[in-house]
């Protein structure tokens, strides 16, 4: 298939706040909570409730907020969601949830609810179920030098004709060994489509996480 890739929406969560092409722009300072928010953050930012948001691990919460900032209802028609793919990459993986579950084992208090979040595909699933994305799902564990692999894979899915649109994201939660220091959370998300789909580009910057992050802000 001969087509070019269009960035139809962008969203980001970082230590400053949440921002996206859907119009969201809010700081953690204004919200009065540290990144990536608490059980009330979703409603505070997006004006509606999310029944399970408060139960999510830190990485899932970060990724869900970044993808919500894409404002998918306005750029991705429901009839295209069955085929929309989801590609996520992470370097830090689930280390935060891993350490939490390991601590629960050490205390002989097995924390069953956190265990599924020790798998990075679980946070991908949290996005899929919220937006009804039933296309190909890929979760990549990437070395720091290989960051951007998800963008390349998403582009392949589009150009091969395997998906008409792809939600692609990176998510990382840096765990501080000193528990008194806050975690550092960052996620960047984008909706990619083909030029033939009629989608309008929100940025023409190079397809790189840094450019997409900048475009979201």
């Amino acid at each position, binding site marked *: 298939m001969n087509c070019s890739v269009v960035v139809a929406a962008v969203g980001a969560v970082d230590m400053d706040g949440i921002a996206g092409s859907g119009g969201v722009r809010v700081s953690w300072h204004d919200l009065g909570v540290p990144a990536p928010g608490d059980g009330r953050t979703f409603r505070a930012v997006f004006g509606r409730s999310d029944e399970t948001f408060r139960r999510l691990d830190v990485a899932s919460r970060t990724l869900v907020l970044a993808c919500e900032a894409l404002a998918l209802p306005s750029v991705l028609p429901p009839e295209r969601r069955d085929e929309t*793919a989801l590609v996520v990459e992470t370097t830090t993986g689930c280390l935060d949830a891993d350490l939490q579950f390991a601590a629960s084992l050490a205390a002989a208090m097995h924390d*069953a609810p956190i265990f599924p979040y020790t798998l990075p595909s679980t946070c991908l699933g949290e996005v899929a179920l919220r937006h009804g994305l039933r296309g190909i799902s890929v979760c990549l564990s990437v070395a720091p030098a290989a960051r951007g692999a998800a963008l390349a894979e998403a582009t392949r899915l589009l150009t091969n004709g395997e998906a008409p649109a792809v939600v692609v994201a990176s998510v990382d939660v840096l765990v501080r060994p000193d528990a008194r220091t806050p975690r550092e959370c960052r996620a960047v998300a984008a909706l990619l489509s083909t030029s033939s789909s009629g989608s309008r580009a929100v940025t023409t910057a190079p397809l790189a996480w840094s450019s997409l992050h900048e475009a979201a802000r």
Partner: protein
Amino acid sequence: MAIRVHVAGRGAITGFGQGRRAFVDAIFAGDTAIRPRGRTAAFAVPTSVAAEVPGDAVPPGLAARDHAWWFATTAAREALAEAHDPPCERTMLVLASTKGDLSGVDGAGDGLGQPWRLGARLAHELGIGGEVVNVSCACASGLVALATAARRIAAGEVERALVVGVDALHAFVMAGFGALNALDREPCRPFDRARRGVTLGEGAGALLLTRHPHESIGTAIVGHGGANDACHVTGPDRQGAGIALAAARALAHAGLTMGEVDVLHLHGTATEANDATEAMGLARLFGGRTPPAFGTKAQTGHTLGAAGVLETIVAIESLRRGEAAANAALTDPDVDPGLDLVRAPRRLVRATTALKVASGFGGVQAAVVLQS
């Protein structure tokens, strides 16, 4: 767009020991590697059994943090050897694993449960010079990795890709499945009325894929597909819609119809929900009656990130032998009868096309179509 990505080499290390031959012979003989726990006996988990790689298949004194690396290396070397050791400096590596090496999360080390670290170590060990991609899609990792590699080869981006699926038994993971009440205390019984959950296993499977027909063992990946249940992160769609969608997409990708599938290799974890919904979805996809279908987790245990690659090796063997293996431990089927569960080894009427499916946490569904 139909593709044809050839299989050039296979390797395995499982509860049956080192080597692909020992593995597939045991599967088709109806043996099981699920035994009372030995190396993992000290793990505080609610089951008496697991499918551990035998102690004589690993170097004496191998540190726990090195098991996944050793399994992966062993399977990879066997696959490369069958393919007459092609130049690794131009080969891509696609690693499939749920947690890679958990050192640093539990005990000292720097694995940190981040599969890319294991991928980097494996690539260095094997002298892989091409790109290294690490897939972590829970129990669907192996098939997603095969699709990832096949996509690159079909596009002409690489000539060869080594796909390695691996996971080692670890207290962290076993306790997690235990905490979810997903472990059977006894050996697992996929698709059976008495099924109570998963038995975990460990090991590695490796497949060397190539674009060159003359390097083929006679089997090729001709299609792949994926989907997401998009309904729950740990439970399947109640109608099995996701796994059926992935299978349908893989067949469409291959340009094949349902009637052209000769044998079906199942995910079959032995959880109540997985087996029921997998059967329902696939039976509906095939219009009420599937081709001969079998799964092998009652023999290997659920090897998680290794499962997709190991079970693809079994599906390849099924085509080569012209036979579907029996579903071990199945005495009283309790799923949609439209799933044609093989009860005793069965000769295939035709052995040209196999469909392999898998599911993972996060709603991830994947399928691969193989042809001999």
